[in-house]
């Protein structure tokens, strides 16, 4: 079968010495930042983007992917041992995981988190491998109008699923699209919004935006909050599960894998939503739901499987359609574009090494994480003793040198600073940065497809509803938007009634 031949190719790429070591490095860094609160995968990947320029595209993506799913593993460790989620996606794990640790079952919780994640990772990697070529062949029949609608749908869903107010999230997406307009117009060569600054003629630097919004702003926010890390660590006893614990975990892991794989594909979804969804489901359907809140293993097994599955499947829209599902995937698009690769359906054919190599490396990386995490847990917990005051100057200096090295130009450092300020302003106003980043990445592509579609249709906008694919995508987008707005309206009404 083709799949096996392709997987064989993938493994031969992933198991090369260079790719193997960078996958390990990525998994290692990912675990570290997963353990450390205050620095997440988005900031780390934007920080390391400049470093990847010297590598081949495949190696770069393999390492960056390792950071992303490594962070899902690392985040669970501190959630269980210290009640301190290293990542947003492992907040849910603290609920039951920390309770289990207090009951003396820290080892079991850690093991089921790692094993559940590994199982989910394996299944969802296979899913990526199977669905990739399938979706790609569908996407190849897309015309410019369909592409435009697809990207619009992606943007709508990423705004709908974002935290907080939907209108604000949509506004941030549009703001991102607006930022993407800066630079030379591709068709006429005219400079737009560049203020005559030559550095802006290629557009606003993607790395500067991401680093500023997620790296620099985050540092300032962390500094204003007083540090509160408990020194009390739960002892890790035996890592083995009892037979009963094992039996109780099987169904939640399976359900978590299913939920995670599904939610991961949706734009704006990703790991944290998946973990939350799985917890909600387990607390409703589990036979042991009465134990929830007192350290039920189901509440660890399900969400941990779900967040890892989602981390893997969120690569599907990126690899097959070129559409980033979340901020991390937007960074991956940035990394690919910088490498001269346009992500999209042609990538599977044009870059089979990259596509299949990445898929194989995901599985290899998950295996590595199992090894990195379980026996070395003591070391990761030690990492928490590094105080933030030693960490943030290091992050800053890496940001500064990294962004400078992009074009050997200090202009990019100033740009990063400005976006740091803007990111801080946004977080004070509860404006989300992630939708903006996705809009920023997709904006220029959308404009190109829109202009091409309108040229082909001789200026008739009806083309977007006349083509069946485009019409379907737009309909889904409209439904998503309306359904998410309705409960908000209803809640408003209820609140108003209660007051009256």
């Amino acid at each position, binding site marked *: 079968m083709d799949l096996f031949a392709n997987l064989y190719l993938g493994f031969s790429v992933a198991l090369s010495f260079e790719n193997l070591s960078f996958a390990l490095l990525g998994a290692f860094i990912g675990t570290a930042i997963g353990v450390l609160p205050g620095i997440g995968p988005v900031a780390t990947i934007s920080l390391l983007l400049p470093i990847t320029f010297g590598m081949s595209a495949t190696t770069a993506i393999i390492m960056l992917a390792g950071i992303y799913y490594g962070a899902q593993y690392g985040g669970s460790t501190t959630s269980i041992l210290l009640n301190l989620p290293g990542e947003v996606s492992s907040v849910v794990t603290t609920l039951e995981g920390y309770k289990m640790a207090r009951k003396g079952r820290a080892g079991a919780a850690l093991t089921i988190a790692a094993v559940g994640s590994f199982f989910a990772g394996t299944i969802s990697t296979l899913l990526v491998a199977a669905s990739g070529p399938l979706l790609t062949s569908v996407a190849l029949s897309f015309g410019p109008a369909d592409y435009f609608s697809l990207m619009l749908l992606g943007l709508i869903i990423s705004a709908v699923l974002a935290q907080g*107010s939907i*209108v604000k999230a949509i506004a941030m997406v549009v703001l991102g*699209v607006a930022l993407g307009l800066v630079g030379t117009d591709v068709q006429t060569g005219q400079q737009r919004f560049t203020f005559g600054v030559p550095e802006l003629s290629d557009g606003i630097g993607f790395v500067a935006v991401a680093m500023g919004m997620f790296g620099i702003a985050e540092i*300032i926010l962390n500094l204003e909050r007083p540090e509160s890390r408990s020194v009390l660590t739960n002892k890790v006893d035996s890592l083995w599960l009892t037979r009963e614990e094992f039996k109780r975990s099987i169904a939640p892991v399976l359900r978590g894998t299913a939920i995670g794989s599904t939610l991961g594909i949706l734009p704006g979804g990703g790991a944290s939503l998946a973990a939350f969804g799985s917890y909600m489901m387990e607390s409703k359907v589990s036979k042991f739901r009465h134990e929830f809140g007192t350290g039920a293993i189901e509440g660890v097994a399900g969400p941990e499987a779900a967040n890892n599955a989602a981390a893997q499947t969120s690569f599907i829209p990126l690899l097959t359609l070129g559409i980033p599902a979340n901020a991390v995937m937007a960074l991956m698009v940035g990394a690919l574009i910088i490498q001269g690769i346009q992500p999209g359906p042609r990538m599977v054919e044009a870059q089979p090494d990259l596509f299949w190599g990445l898929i194989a490396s995901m599985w290899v990386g998950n295996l590595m994480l199992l090894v990195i995490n379980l026996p070395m847990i003591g070391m990761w917990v030690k990492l928490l003793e590094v105080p*933030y005051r030693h960490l943030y100057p290091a992050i800053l200096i890496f940001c500064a040198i990294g962004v400078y090295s992009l074009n050997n130009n200090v202009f990019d450092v*100033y740009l990063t600073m400005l976006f740091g300020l803007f990111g801080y302003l946004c977080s004070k106003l509860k404006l989300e940065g992630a939708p903006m980043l996705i809009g920023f990445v997709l904006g220029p592509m959308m404009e190109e497809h829109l202009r091409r579609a*309108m040229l082909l249709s001789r*200026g008739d906008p009806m083309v977007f509803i006349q083509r069946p694919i485009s019409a379907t995508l737009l309909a889904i987008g409209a439904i998503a938007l309306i359904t998410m707005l309705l409960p908000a309206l209803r809640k408003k009404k209820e609140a108003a009634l209660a007051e009256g």
Partner: protein
Amino acid sequence: MKINAKDVASGALLIGIAVIGLWLNQDHTLGTARRMGPGYMPMMTFWLLMGLGAIVLLLGLFNGPDRLERWAWRELTLILASLVVFALLLESGGLFLSIAGLVGVAALGDRTHRPLGVLGLMVFLMALCWFVFIRELDIRVNLFPVFLGMG
């Protein structure tokens, strides 16, 4: 009326950006829907942004209360200033001096720092950055100040 000050400010910010964008966009030819000029997409984007900003602002008048938060001016200024110091020092002062400058200014942002600790951190980061960026990645940048003639 419960004013959500955050949303009102957000709305005003978005409208402000949209107005500036539309004003700047006057320089670009719009073209027609069939042959869009460089100004067409910006025009649509900024009008949409203005509309959304207006909705955020109007809703903000009722969906509060949510006050504006205090800003950590000290930390904000110091962190941003440390980047400026780095950028100013880099080309003439060399990498090591600009690392020292960045770390020195940024360290003021956390009151628990001790002078000796900061010094140690500077030396450590200089060594680390030399290893990563100069030895491994071979970035073209002066290491030492130009006026010392060692570049």
